[in-house]
């Protein structure tokens, strides 16, 4: 399956390589670099690159390319999914997954990779098991290790690997038993320039942080499970029970995990809680254009809209922008032509706006593209789909 893994940063340096079978020369990455050059942006590097003897499958996350080398037919998603799992594991271990962090923890990274794959076939990918095998580095542990000479490698053997619930380690003990569930919902909407919604859909996830002693068996039920149009589960959730009773029944992994992600059907059109008024015009005669956007709340059910960020890709013809925001800060990068405005909270009494002029390349004709505005925002304590807070129950828990 997976022969080798190369970690490549955006400037094209291979800063980590790991081989699970015979060593594959790093020159194989030349094909990757070629493709990288051809693709103008990192996201456009094709995830699958065939070379004469190998196939390079890559994912791009945290400004790092994770390039897996394979030699024979394998479902591409298998490899891609695995690479993402690797990134998730690194994130889980080190908090962030970035080049310096990986370089600093190269030994741990190597040990983890060694455990994750055996001869190219995934072996232990559950974070609970991995953490039993190789303890994640913490400041405290580093200090202790230097003093006592102990190591990151767990001295106990990972018995979880042998159990029927491979995602949970055994012998978990907590004095405060607690379980938290975060319901995070995202609206994804395309809105045309007149303000009407073209498509909108809600995706949600339930992230859990469970710190319970022993082998708890939990159930979670929803007031209105019908809302959930399409769901996918952590492997710990019992499919059958969901199918028959619409109840989530599971033995949770220890610590943080994503219990469930769901999709709320787009049929009943979602009310978008914000609106944007825009007035962007480029004039042919002068090399100046007008730019004005206002963001305002709409149907927020009394909640404040926070973390509003507006980004917009300006046409190539735009040289610079002189804008003044009524609140927040804005930047315009004249190289990438990316305008970004960090608005912050929206105060319904005083709507934030960004006004100013756009200076265009002299002589060039009016750009005929309309810039797209991307708007991000957050609303705390509101499930836009109306999914009611789940009811939590425990079963079989001493």
């Amino acid at each position, binding site marked *: 399956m997976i022969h080798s893994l190369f970690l490549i940063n955006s400037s094209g340096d291979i800063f980590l390589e790991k081989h699970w079978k015979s060593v594959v020369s790093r020159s194989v990455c030349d094909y990757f670099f070629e493709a990288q050059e051809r693709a103008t942006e990192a996201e456009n590097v094709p995830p699958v690159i065939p070379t004469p003897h190998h196939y390079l499958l890559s994912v791009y996350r945290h400004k790092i390319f994770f390039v897996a080398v394979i030699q024979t037919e394998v479902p591409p998603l298998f490899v891609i999914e695995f690479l993402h799992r690797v990134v998730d594991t690194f994130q889980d271990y080190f908090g962030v997954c970035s080049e310096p962090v990986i370089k600093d923890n190269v030994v741990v990274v190597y*040990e983890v990779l060694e455990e994750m794959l055996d001869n190219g076939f995934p072996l232990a990918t559950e974070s609970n098991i991995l953490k039993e095998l190789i303890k994640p580095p913490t400041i405290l542990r580093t200090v202790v290790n230097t003093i006592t000479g102990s190591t990151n490698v767990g001295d106990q053997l990972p018995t979880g690997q042998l159990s029927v619930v491979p995602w949970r380690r055994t012998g978990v003990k907590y004095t405060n038993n607690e379980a938290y569930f975060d319901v995070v919902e995202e609206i994804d909407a395309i809105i045309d320039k007149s303000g009407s919604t073209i498509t909108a859909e809600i995706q949600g996830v339930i992230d859990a942080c469970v710190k319970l002693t022993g082998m708890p068996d939990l159930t979670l039920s929803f007031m209105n499970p019908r809302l959930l149009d399409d769901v996918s589960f952590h492997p710990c959730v019992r499919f059958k029970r969901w199918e028959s009773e619409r109840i989530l029944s599971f033995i949770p992994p220890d610590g943080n995990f994503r219990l469930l992600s769901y999709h709320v059907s787009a049929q009943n059109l979602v009310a978008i809680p914000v609106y944007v008024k825009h007035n962007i015009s480029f004039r042919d005669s002068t090399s100046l254009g007008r730019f004005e956007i206002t963001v305002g709340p709409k149907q927020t059910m009394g909640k404040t809209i926070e973390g509003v960020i507006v980004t917009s890709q300006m046409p190539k013809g735009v040289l610079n922008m002189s804008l003044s925001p009524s609140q927040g800060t804005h930047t315009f990068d004249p190289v990438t032509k990316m305008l970004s405005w960090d608005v912050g909270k929206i105060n319904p009494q005083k709507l934030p706006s960004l006004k100013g002029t756009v200076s265009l390349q002299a002589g060039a004709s009016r750009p005929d593209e309309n810039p797209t505005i991307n708007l991000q925002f957050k609303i705390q304590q509101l499930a836009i789909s109306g999914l009611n807070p789940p009811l939590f129950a425990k079963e079989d828990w001493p």
Partner: protein
Amino acid sequence: MPGAGELLLPSSDSLASPLCSGRRPLSTLLSIKNLLRKDTAYNPWSVSFLAPLLSFLSAKHSHISAKCGPMTRHDDLKEMLDTNKDSLKLEAMKRIVAMIARGKNASDLFPAVVKNVACKNIEVKKLVYVYLVRYAEEQQDLALLSISTFQRGLKDPNQLIRASALRVLSSIRVPIIVPIMMLAIKEAASDMSPYVRKTAAHAIPKLYSLDSDQKDQLIEVIEKLLADKTTLVAGSVVMAFEEVCPERIDLIHKNYRKLCNLLIDVEEWGQVVIISMLTRYARTQFLSPTQNESLLEENPEKAFYGSEEDEAKGPGSEEAAAAALPTRKPYVMDPDHRLLLRNTKPLLQSRSAAVVMAVAQLYFHLAPKAEVGVIAKALVRLLRSHSEVQYVVLQNVATMSIKRRGMFEPYLKSFYIRSTDPTQIKILKLEVLTNLANETNIPTVLREFQTYIRSMDKDFVAATIQAIGRCATNIGRVRDTCLNGLVQLLSNRDELVVAESVVVIKKLLQMQPAQHGEIIKHLAKLTDNIQVPMARASILWLIGEYCEHVPRIAPDVLRKMAKSFTAEEDIVKLQVINLAAKLYLTNSKQTKLLTQYVLSLAKYDQNYDIRDRARFTRQLIVPSEQGGALSRHAKKLFLAPKPAPVLESSFKDRDHFQLGSLSHLLNAKATGYQELPDWPEEAPDPSVRNVEVPEWTKCSNREKRKEKEKPFYSDSEGESGPTESADSDPESESESDSKSSSESGSGESSSESDNEDQDEDEEKGRSSESEQSEEEGEKKKMKKRKKVPEGQREGSSSDEGSDSSSSSSESEMTSDTEEEQVEPASWRKKTPPSGKSAPAAKEISLLDLEDFTPPSVQPLSPPTVVSTSLAADLEGLTLTDSPLVPSLLSPVSGAGRQELLHRVAGEGLAVDYTFSRQPFSGDPHMVSVHIHFSNSSDTPIKGLHVGTPKLPAGISIQEFPEIESLSPGESTTAIMGINFCDSTQAANFQLCTQTRQFYVSIQPPVGELMAPVFMSENEFKKEQGKLTGMNEITEKLTLPDASRSDHVVVQKVTATANLGRVPCGTSDEYRFAGRTLTSGSLVLLTLDARPTGAAQLTVNSEKMVIGTMLVKDVVQALTQ
């Protein structure tokens, strides 16, 4: 030491000259070490070699290190590794691993590192393993030093240490240790711990890649591990299977159902591998579910996949289906096929995109059309994942959406493009949107496309224009709209957009050039501005092709082009020559000179293609002195009507690759890709997957069926063949219901041949439905013949066949001569076609008719009865599923044919009846009685029916449907049900014809008032314990010599009473169980036979009367 045999060989060789050969001092060392550990007779001898050898080695190394010492940077590391402090060692190892990670060469540290392989510190050890696995291949000899450590680890009591020792041992790619690895794998494969077995499975492909000669041995291990029942092992072993022997699909048979059932609990990675392997497996083992849906109406229960015919059916499959249609039987999904579909479906909800994709491709390739739709939603969900996942999923969706457009139509909006999508995703989404566009949604799609055209991403805009072109060609209604839109784009300021539009417009115009002279003119004007070669070439081609529509402009364009000819790109130059030639042919007056000018320019062009083309064109169009044969046809050559290009998706026909595979993504066969086989024409033997069922159950199933078939006159349509094994679906029971008439069977006890028979039957059963009508005709004829041997029938009824089952199979054999030929010859020997038969008269009659083809008498019961009786029979089957040893099976119908009405009394109408022992269709409490009418008068008998019965309390009758006419000499059979209310009272009723009424009565023998029950020995004992005292009737008897053998006893008992045999531990005891039909009270019969002939018969039953009578009957039967 299990490896002794293998290890001795190399060692004895090297021991002969350990030092002087000097080729492989270390392998010698290894062998010696092994010898030492073996404690063999060689021991003292080899020790003497060992000391100098070791010193030789260490000297060699110290020499090396001394030599390169000053040069290497790693001296400090070596020093650290040599210390006794674990912390220093650890530090050194960490630095070394960091070097490896960065891709730096650390191989010169090998000796220093390997020494630490047995280090106590677990992290040092692990890092040494990492190092070892990385460099062992390069330093094979030195790597051998570490082997003994791992060998010791393999014997560790802790399973995790055993596993990790095997893991590292198998990861060291040193060919010389292949035998050691092989042994270790074999041993680990039968380890107690599933985790070690999993590691063994992982080690298999490693060893295989090291030495493919071990394949056969490895396949054995795989076979063994495939049988493993733990989820932990399943994924890994299937992976090994796929890498080592994917062609050995036969290894999967026995494990197929287990894999299907375990699937949901296997870890995600294993699921992916198993699902894709099972997809391939299913393609070889099951019939295509889409092969002939037109016939589905015949099977109402399968209506759920009989939905609308998909227009997007592959041409190949359609042809195949059409060709096969006349011969094909109605499609019945194999229960195992259904099992796979059912068990994979919940995995669509997996969090892993790879699993979802695997299930999606499984459904796409294996599911009936109407069921494929379920995967759409899950695939659309994956579109919210990482962009790489989206990329792969969209590629697959693009392929699927060509074949099954309807599936994704509801999700059209999910494929709308977001400005934040990477270009490659945008283009794939466009592809899908284009595939999904149809008459109804095209306005929406086009509106969406219009927005895209204004995007800043030019590649994407170009792709959008192409997509519009494709929509326009596919959907005629919007062609003009699209064309207009594209023409407007010609005034776009971006040249790329214009160029792309030109290319697309060219293709569209080719479809209807006549109406679009204006557009061509417009395009002609563009030649002044547009610089993109492809676009210029397209315009020139258009003008040339349709020069008659623009007769004034065309020469002028050529003039301009001639002027700029030298500066044009090659592709444009070629089109200029083309244009010149076409104009010369149509309008030579104006363009003759221009053409010659262009051709002269081209003649001296740098590009040889252009020079060639010019020479060629000149010869064609300008008649030369001797040529002219071609030039006469020049017009035809150049101005022939050309077919419009078909704009089709690049994803068309990609589905011959297994979806979700790398090969599909690349649209090229990747190394190691396993072709997805086509569906077989005929389903291979499904019984190969039977495993869990112990053999005897199968046999009895088989035999039981035969019992069912046996009543020759019975309602053959109601007959069913329990072809599926015990663990198959209930639905299959009805699917595989087969007509007894067409059954072939053998009375063999060997389970193997039974299996074969069984599935032949199954196939037969499927076909029989269609053949039924013919058979019916034959059966009628048959009836006539049957009358003849009536006399013999009685005579031979006393001749009790000991091999009753064989006789029954004989009777079946008559059903189908064709089948007979197919049957293996072996069974025929065992079943001599003698007159040995069951006591039942009807069987005997069959034997006489053995050589006739038609199987049995078709009852005249109407179809309604048929369908209900089918269900009832199936019920009966499960009830009667008794585990009898086949050779001990009973004949079916206990009491022989009894006379109901003598032909003299009946004025030519003779009526007999038999107890068929089949559950009666309408009412399970009724005994089903087959009534046989034959008309021996010379006038037809009309309107045969049952008249008002005068019945004792509780007894009820289900009358047979009226027989309209029975012509002279003809016979027929009807079934009626009588509820005797668990008593032996006679049922009196009238048998009426149009002219006469006959009073008749049927009195059942007590043995017919019950139905067999399947139970285990323990259950039997338990039930027997409850029925003691008054409920127990015991009788002592002496068995005559003739009836002391096992099967005679069993046969006699079962002939007397309709009971099922219960397995019994002791040899001299026979147990039978049944339930009375009306009240369902248990009837348990035990016969304790001593070898001397003395026997004791015990009947336990709540119904004491029945018990007493039964004892009497059985004793009588046995002592006769």
